[in-house]
């Protein structure tokens, strides 16, 4: 599991990555830079993922495969894995989003 997160955090600009239980927002595994509150990230990501999922399902476009929240000082990127886990990354605003997305999707496939 750590190897999976390793591949994400190796991308330049990624401050941390974690696996989060989508149901309760609890951390399953994490690799975070100092200063990032893992439990906060996990809880917020799970909560936002749940709301987004409901909105997207209501719109008839199915559950989300990947989403990212863009903000002034950084970005939160999430891939909901089939296992009910969320693969989450927190990154700098100038991170290569496409690359992180690919690594998150790969990680999502390996998480069971």
């Amino acid at each position, binding site marked *: 599991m750590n190897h999976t997160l390793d591949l994400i955090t190796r991308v*330049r600009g990624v401050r941390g990555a974690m696996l989060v239980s989508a149901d309760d927002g609890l951390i399953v595994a994490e690799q975070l830079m100092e200063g*990032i509150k893992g439990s*906060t*990230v996990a809880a*917020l*990501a799970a*909560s*936002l993922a749940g*709301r*987004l999922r*409901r*909105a*997207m399902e*209501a*719109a*008839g*476009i*199915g*559950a*989300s*495969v*990947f*989403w*990212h*929240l*863009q*903000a*002034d*000082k*950084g*970005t*939160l990127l999430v891939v909901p894995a089939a296992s009910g886990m969320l693969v989450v990354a*927190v990154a700098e*605003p*100038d991170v*290569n*989003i*496409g*690359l992180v997305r*690919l690594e998150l999707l790969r990680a999502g496939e390996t998480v069971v």
Partner: protein
Amino acid sequence: MADDVRALSAQLAQDPQSLVFLRLAEALRRKGQLDAALRVALNGLERHPHLADAHDLYARVLTDKHDYERAFDEWDMALRIAPNHTGALKGLAFLYFKVGDLQQAETHLELAKRVEPDDPTITQAIDMVRGGASPPSPEPSHAEPPAETAASATAAVATPVLDESRVFAGLEGAQEGLVLLDAAGRVLGGALRNPAGADVTDAVAAYLAGVSQEAARTAKLLGLGAWSGLSAEGKHGNVHVSQPSKDALLLVVRDRGVPLGRLAILAQRATGMARRWLDAQ
């Protein structure tokens, strides 16, 4: 040129979400102000991470700064977003040539030629590679953009069917997959139908208000500052959520055939229209 930079800077300051950063960074790059060009390009990429032209521009600046490794990543990303992006194809060809991989250089140029068979610079670059000479350092696909800007040209290509009046009509209730709502989840304009044709506007609006609050809370508590957009890929469609004003939210939904980068351009335009529409109310 200095006037160009001033004018473009002013335009960008007025509308930071606009694509004018592409022209500004390119103008700065041409003036040799690479650090400034890099900053502008990076800020633009932050706002438009799925815009292939933004990655292409950033890669060109990085190339000028001899940061070839990162330039390679950026052009590679541009191609993942837009596989026929000739700027990225030419850029990668240039970098392959730099490391002595003439075969890959030629392959990428051939691919570019297939996309733009009438571009003489590509033919010239292929001849140069075959002759063992370095192809010219990559320039934008339209090296000297006329009065029409590179940015607007990009947008026009990326969203050929986007017509402002139609988007505005969408805000007034047409079925455009575009919904404007207030902070409490009340619909201000636009409408949304699911793939089966049922009107789902109110349900989505209700859920979306919660998403907006949660996004703001998340960004704040994580120390990420103010959120500027939320993009999501769904199994049957893509969505982009933005805030045209503090108390309003705009949702743009398109099927999966519209990639997130193109959706971001569309959403950006719609956000501008929504902002004007809100101001007019």
